[in-house]
């Protein structure tokens, strides 16, 4: 517990949150939103296709969308870590934080399962199966939960 407190009360946090420059907190927060748009936006297109919307899109083409999913994820992992450090002690005891991180982890995992089962060329049963559609639907639902949890967290910051 005191490790997280030391992060939240660190000189870095004081500098980062106390800076009047828009290149510190405001920019990191905006990059986090941009990462979200790329990550969830790309996931949204993939899963819509799996759910039979835009049915004509060749499944293998969706592979390229995963590049954007990973780009968005890396931007948000990096910016998220910075933001976490500045609120570490508050977040580590916040259930909404765990809902957010848990939802992201499972949503990503389901996205990877979809890729392996329906999209990758060597897929055991290529094409869209009922299981793939369930995973896609669940993933979309979890992304929505992650977004809402992220918003609510802002209201629980002390």
């Amino acid at each position, binding site marked *: 517990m005191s490790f997280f407190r030391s992060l939240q009360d660190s000189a870095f946090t004081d500098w980062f949150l*106390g800076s009047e420059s828009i290149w510190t907190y*405001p920019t990191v927060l905006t990059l986090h939103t941009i990462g979200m748009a790329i990550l969830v936006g790309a996931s949204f297109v993939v899963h819509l296709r799996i759910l039979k919307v835009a049915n004509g899109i060749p499944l293998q083409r969706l592979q390229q969308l995963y590049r954007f999913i990973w780009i968005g994820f890396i931007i948000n992992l990096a910016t998220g870590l910075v933001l976490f450090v500045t609120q570490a002690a508050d977040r580590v005891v916040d259930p909404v934080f765990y809902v957010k991180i848990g939802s992201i982890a499972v949503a990503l995992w389901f996205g990877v399962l979809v890729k392996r089962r329906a999209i990758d060329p060597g897929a055991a049963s290529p094409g869209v199966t009922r299981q793939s559609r369930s995973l896609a639907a669940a993933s979309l639902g*979890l992304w929505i939960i992650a977004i809402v*949890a992220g918003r609510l967290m802002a209201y*629980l*910051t002390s």
Partner: protein
Amino acid sequence: MRIRTRVSLAIAGFALASASVAAHHSFAMFEMDKDVDYRGVVSEWKWQNPHVHFTVDIKPGSGVDPKQVGRWDVEGGSINIMTRQGWTRASYKIGDPIRLVGHPMKDGSKGISLFYAIRPDGTRLYHDIARPKDDVSK
């Protein structure tokens, strides 16, 4: 089923968490069209993003409304916006007397959304661009 269980667990956890949202900070939780005058002493001062945050202690005394006695959580805006309105990190410090006008919490708890502080010379330090209809001077 694995998927359904996980999603249900996530939703349940989320529902539990949202019950505690009433904590603080959504500015929708303040009565934004109520302006109340407070005079006290600064007991905490956090000049930081996303919100400048300080606490004000109001002690009982003559002329002090008993309902106001106690420690109040005052929430301001971002450093960037407040700086543009004339605030600085050094505007107040712990121990300074302060007079401010703000919007109280709807549920009656001791939280204030900062509207403006009033300097000893009577001029106002607004927290953002909002001005009351009767704005006399900045």
